[in-house]
C-alpha cells in the first residue's frame, strides 16, 4: 500500500466548508446571546476629555454602554500579549481606532446605532504616522524573544572595503494588513465562574492564558473553542483587546456576548506589517563570493510596544558570508502595535534579494550562479547546520522548469507587441519555531479511531494532514479516522503561527497513534481468541484496519475485532517537541510590462522548496499558490494608506486595499524536493510562511529585466514606471 502521507487527498473538511456546515466563531448560536459593538477613537494621540453616552443608552434594546469610566478593571497581560495596554481602562488614546466604548444590545443593529451616538470629546495631540515623520527618532530596541536587534559577524567594514563590486541601496515597503476573509469574532459565555470562548484565534491555548491573566481567574476555568478559522496570516495569533473586553463585559452583565469586528476595525485591532525601510549594502569579490552583507533597517513601533517583527534574520542565514552586520532599528509612531504577518522575514529578504540582483548586474554574473556561489548550510552564529542543504536542488528544479538557462540578462531584451517581458528570481527562506504539543488517540470497539489535539486549522489543512498522519501510523483507512482540534480540553499544542503546526503537531499525533496501535497489538497477542495470539508484537504490521503477522499474512485480526473483544476503547497519548529549522526554496517569475502605460502583469511563476517530506501534495501546493498570489499583491498593489495628519486608515476595506484578484494570478507551478527531515518522526519541516518571502523581490527583479527600471519602493504601481 502506498503511504497515505504525501498523497494529495482532498480536505476532509472541504465538504463542510463549501456547504456551510463548518461553524466559525461568529456562527455560534448561544441562547440569549447579546451583541457587542466597539466605538473607536477618531484621534490618534491624546486624551478623552468627556464622553457622553446618554443618547446611546436611550436606544431601545441597549443593555449597557461601557466606557473607560465604567468598564470593569482588567490586568494588562505580560508579553506575548502584544498591545502593552488594555483599552477602556483610562482616558489615554494611543492610536486612531482604539476602542473608547463597548456597547451591548439585544440586536447588532441596536448596538451599532447606539455606538454611533456616543459623543466623545478629546484633547488631541499631533500624531506621527510615517517613518518620515520622525527623523532621528529611531533607536535600537532591547533584545526580543528572537534575540538582540543587532548582529555582527566578522569585519563588515573590511569586507566592504575589499569588495570588487558593491551595491548600496535603500528599499522600502509600506504598512500591510492581513485581511483574512473571516473578521475576528468572540462569543463569551459564562456559566457560574466557568467561561467558554468561541473564538477566531490561531492559538486557543494562548487565548486561555492571556484571558485568564487579564481577568485574574485560573486558566482552567476558561475553555476556548476554535473548530474552524477563516484565515489568520498572523492577525489572530496573539490575543487582542476585543477578546479580553468581551469576556469581561459578559461576566459583568451575566449574559453571553457576541462581538464580530467589522472589516474596518480589523485594520486597527489585530496588528499589521510595519512600514519598513532598509539600507542594504552588499559587496562581492570578482568571482561573486560575498565579502560583506550589511542591513540597517528601520521599522514602525507603537507608543506602547517595542517588539520588532520584521526580522532581518535572512541577512545572516541564507548565504555564507564572512562579514555580516544587521541592525534592526525601530521608531515609535502613533499607530496601532504592529505584529507578525505572513511572513515576518519577508521584508528584509526582499531587500537582500533585490540587492543581490543588482549585484549580479554589477558583476556580470547570472543571479542563480551568484546565489549558488554563496550558498551555505551553516548558521554563522553557532556554526551548526540549519537545514538549508537542498537550496541548490530547489534552484535547479525551479530554474529548469522555468527555462532560466535561456534568459538573456540584458534589460529590455524581450518584447511582444506593446509589452516588454522580464524574468527574475529570488531565494525564498523562512525559519520555523519549536513548539511542544501533545495528542490523544482512541480506538473504539467499532474499529474507528478518534484523534484529538488542541491545535488549530487556520485554513492550511491541519484536519486533513493530521488525519493522514493518524491513519498512516495506525494502519487504518482515512475514513476510519476522525481528527478533532480547536478545543482547550484537548491535549495542548502551540499556536498555529511561525510555520510550526505541521512540524510540531505531526510528531505528537504520530506518537499517540503509534502508542495506541502498540496497545492494540499487545491486546491481540495476549488474547487467546485472536489469530495473532502468542505472536511477537514486533512481527505484526497494521494495514487498512487489519493486523497481520508479517511472516504469515493469513494470520490476521482487525482493530475492530481486537478492541471489541477487549470490550472498551483503547487510548494513548503522545508528546513531542519539534526541532526548529529553516525552510528554503526559490521562485522564478515572468512579468509583462506595458511601458507606455506602466502596466505590469505577472504571467508565470515557478517555485521549488525543500519542505522535508511532503505531507499532502495538494495542501502543500495550495500554500505555494497562496504565497505566490500574495507576493503579487505585495509587489504590485498592497498598501495601507494612512492619513498623515489624523493617522486614520483611509482604505480599511477590500475595495480600497488591493489584494490580487483571480485575474492577477499567474500560472503557478510548484515543485518539492520531498526528502524526509531526519529530526521529525514523519519527516516534516515547517513550511507555511516560506512561499512568498522572495516573490516580491523576484517580481521587482523581473520588472528590472523587462524595463531597465529598478523600483526599490513597494508597491510597484504604474505611476512609478511611467
Amino acid at each position, binding site marked *: 500500500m502506498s503511504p497515505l502521507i504525501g498523497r494529495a487527498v482532498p480536505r476532509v473538511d472541504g465538504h463542510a466548508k463549501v456547504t456551510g456546515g463548518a461553524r466559525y466563531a461568529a456562527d455560534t448560536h448561544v441562547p440569549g446571546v447579546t451583541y457587542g459593538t466597539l466605538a*473607536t477613537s*477618531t484621534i490618534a494621540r491624546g486624551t478623552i476629555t468627556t464622553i457622553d453616552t446618554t443618547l446611546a443608552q436611550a436606544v431601545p434594546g441597549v443593555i449597557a454602554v461601557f466606557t473607560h469610566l465604567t468598564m470593569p478593571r482588567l490586568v494588562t497581560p505580560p508579553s506575548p500579549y502584544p498591545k502593552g495596554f488594555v483599552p477602556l481602562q483610562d482616558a489615554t488614546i494611543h492610536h*486612531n*481606532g482604539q476602542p473608547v466604548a463597548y456597547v451591548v444590545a439585544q440586536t447588532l*443593529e441596536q448596538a*451599532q*446605532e447606539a455606538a*454611533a451616538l456616543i459623543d466623545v470629546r478629546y484633547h488631541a495631540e499631533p500624531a506621527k504616522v510615517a517613518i518620515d515623520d520622525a527623523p532621528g527618532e529611531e533607536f535600537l530596541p532591547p533584545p526580543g524573544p528572537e534575540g538582540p536587534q543587532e548582529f555582527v559577524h566578522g569585519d563588515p567594514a573590511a569586507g566592504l572595503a575589499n569588495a570588487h563590486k558593491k551595491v548600496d541601496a535603500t528599499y522600502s515597503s509600506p504598512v500591510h494588513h492581513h485581511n483574512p476573509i473571516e473578521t475576528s469574532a468572540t462569543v463569551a459565555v459564562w456559566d457560574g465562574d466557568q467561561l467558554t470562548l468561541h473564538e477566531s484565534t490561531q492559538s486557543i491555548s494562548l487565548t486561555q492564558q492571556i484571558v485568564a491573566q487579564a481577568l485574574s481567574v485560573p486558566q482552567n476555568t476558561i475553555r476556548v473553542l476554535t473548530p474552524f478559522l477563516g484565515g489568520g496570516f498572523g492577525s489572530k495569533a496573539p490575543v487582542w483587546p476585543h477578546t479580553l473586553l468581551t469576556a469581561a463585559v459578559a461576566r459583568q452583565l451575566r449574559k453571553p456576548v457576541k462581538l464580530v469586528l467589522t472589516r*474596518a476595525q480589523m485594520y486597527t485591532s489585530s496588528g499589521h506589517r510595519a512600514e519598513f525601510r532598509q539600507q542594504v549594502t552588499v559587496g562581492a569579490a570578482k568571482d561573486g563570493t560575498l565579502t560583506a552583507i550589511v542591513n540597517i533597517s528601520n521599522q514602525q513601533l507603537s507608543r506602547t510596544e517595542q517588539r520588532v517583527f520584521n526580522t532581518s534574520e535572512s541577512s545572516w542565514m541564507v548565504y555564507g558570508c564572512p562579514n555580516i552586520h544587521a541592525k534592526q532599528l525601530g521608531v515609535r509612531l502613533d499607530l496601532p502595535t504592529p505584529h507578525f504577518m505572513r511572513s515576518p522575514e519577508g521584508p528584509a529578504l526582499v531587500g537582500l534579494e533585490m540587492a543581490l540582483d543588482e549585484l549580479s548586474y554589477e558583476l556580470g554574473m547570472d543571479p542563480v550562479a551568484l546565489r549558488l556561489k554563496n550558498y551555505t548550510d551553516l548558521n554563522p552564529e553557532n556554526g551548526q547546520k540549519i537545514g538549508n542543504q537542498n537550496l541548490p536542488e530547489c534552484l535547479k528544479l525551479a530554474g529548469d522548469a522555468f527555462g532560466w538557462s535561456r534568459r538573456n540578462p540584458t534589460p529590455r531584451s524581450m518584447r511582444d507587441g506593446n509589452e516588454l517581458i522580464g524574468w527574475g528570481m529570488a531565494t525564498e527562506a523562512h525559519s520555523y519555531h519549536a513548539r511542544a504539543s501533545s495528542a490523544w488517540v482512541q480506538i473504539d470497539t467499532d474499529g474507528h479511531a478518534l484523534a484529538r489535539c488542541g491545535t488549530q486549522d487556520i485554513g492550511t489543512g491541519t484536519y486533513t494532514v493530521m488525519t493522514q498522519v493518524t491513519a498512516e501510523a495506525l494502519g487504518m483507512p482515512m475514513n476510519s479516522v476522525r481528527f478533532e482540534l480547536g478545543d482547550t480540553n484537548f491535549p495542548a499544542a502551540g499556536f498555529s503561527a511561525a510555520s510550526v503546526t505541521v512540524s510540531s503537531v505531526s510528531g505528537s499525533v504520530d506518537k499517540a497513534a503509534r502508542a495506541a496501535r502498540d496497545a492494540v497489538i499487545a491486546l491481540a497477542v495476549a488474547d487467546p481468541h485472536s489469530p495473532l495470539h502468542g505472536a511477537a508484537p514486533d512481527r505484526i504490521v497494521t494495514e487498512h484496519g487489519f493486523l497481520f503477522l508479517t511472516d504469515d499474512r493469513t494470520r490476521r485480526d482487525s482493530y475492530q475485532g481486537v478492541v471489541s473483544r477487549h470490550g472498551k476503547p483503547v487510548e494513548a497519548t503522545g508528546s513531542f517537541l519539534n526541532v526548529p529549522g529553516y525552510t528554503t526554496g526559490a521562485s522564478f517569475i515572468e512579468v509583462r510590462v506595458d511601458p*507606455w*502605460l*506602466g*502596466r505590469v*502583469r505577472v504571467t508565470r511563476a515557478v517555485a521549488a522548496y525543500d519542505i522535508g517530506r511532503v505531507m499532502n501534495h495538494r495542501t502543500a501546493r495550495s500554500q505555494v499558490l497562496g504565497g505566490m498570489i500574495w507576493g503579487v499583491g505585495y509587489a*504590485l*498593489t498592497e498598501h495601507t*494608506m*494612512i*492619513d*498623515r*495628519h*489624523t493617522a*486614520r486608515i*483611509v*482604505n*480599511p*476595506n477590500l*475595495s*480600497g486595499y*488591493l489584494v*490580487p*484578484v483571480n*485575474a*492577477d494570478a499567474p500560472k503557478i507551478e510548484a515543485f518539492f524536493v520531498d526528502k524526509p527531515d531526519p529530526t521529525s518522526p514523519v519527516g516534516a519541516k515547517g513550511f507555511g510562511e516560506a512561499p512568498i518571502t522572495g516573490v516580491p523581490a523576484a517580481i521587482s527583479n523581473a520588472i528590472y529585466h523587462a524595463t531597465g527600471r529598478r523600483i526599490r519602493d513597494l*508597491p510597484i*504601481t*504604474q*505611476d512609478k514606471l*511611467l
Partner: protein
Amino acid sequence: MKNFEYARANNPADAVRLVGDRPGATFIAGGTDLLNLMKDGAQTHDRIVDVNGLALTDISHGNGFLRVGALARMADVGAHRAVREKFPVVSQALLASASPQVRNMASIGGNLLQRTRCGYFRDTGSACNKRIPGSGCPAIDGENRGHAVLGVSDHCIAAHPSDLAVSLIAVDAVVLTNGPHGERRIPFGDFHLAPGDTPERENVLTHGELIVGLELPLTPAAAKSQYLKLRDRATFEFAVVSVAAALDLRGRTVNDVRLAFGGIATKPWRSTDAEAVLRGRALDTATIDAAGRAAVHGAIPRAHNAFKIDLVQRALSRVLHELGGVR
C-alpha cells in the same frame, strides 16, 4: 445601522410618491452601493423604496436611438448585442466595471448615482464636506492618489467613480426621469455637477425623482468607440484613469469625435477642448498629443495624484492610435 422602513413600489408613480413624501427616503435598486453606504454610516435613510418590481428593464430600439431601462442590469446591458455593436464604449465600460457578481445585481440607474470611493467620504470618523457640509476636506492635503485633478474645488476633490457614466457622456446620452414635477429629459452633460461650494450636490435630480431610462443616439462616432480603463490590479477596481473615445473618421480626417475621461475628475468629464483640437484635422500623433494636452489643461495636481495628468494623456494616445488605426 439605524432601523429603517422598507416599501416596494408597484409602478413609477408609486415609487416617486413613496420617496417624495419622506425627506429621509430613497430608492433602492441593486443595493450594491446604497447598502454599503448605509452600513458604513455614510448615509442614513428612514425608508427605502424598492424599485426592482418596476417594468424598466428593457433595452429597445427607438427612432435613431437605443433606449435602456433604468433597472436593466449592468451585466445584461454590457452583453447586449445592440449595445456591443452600436455603442462598444458603453459595453466595454460596463464589462470593465466591478465584478460579475456586482454587475448581475447592479442597475444602470443606480450606477449613475453611485457615490465617490473617496475614503474620507466613506469613513464617518473623518471630516468630509460632501458628507457633512462645512466639516472640511482632508483629501486635499491627505491621501489623494485616487482623487481628481479636474473639476475640483477648495471643498472637494473626490473622483467620480462610474465607468458607465464616462462612456455615456461620450455618446451624448440623455437621462429620462419621472419625478414629483413630471417627466424630464436631461442631457448627460448636464446631469452630474462638479462640487463647487456644494459638494453634497452631485446631480440635478430633485428628491423623489426617479431615473426611468436612458436614450443613446445612434451615431457613426458611437459605433466606432472604445473604452480604456487603467487600474492598479487587473480587474475589480475603480479606474485610476480611464478614457472613452468615439471617433468618426472620413479618410484620415476627424469628422466627429467625443472624448471623455474617468478617474481624473469630480464628475464624468468630457473635454470639448480636446475634441476641438481633433475635429477637422488629420488624425496623427502630433494632433493626438495636442488633444491630450488640451484635455488636461487647468488640471490641479496634489501630492499623490500628479501622475494621472501624464497617465491619462498616454491612455488617450493609446486609444486614439488604436481606434484611428494610427501607428
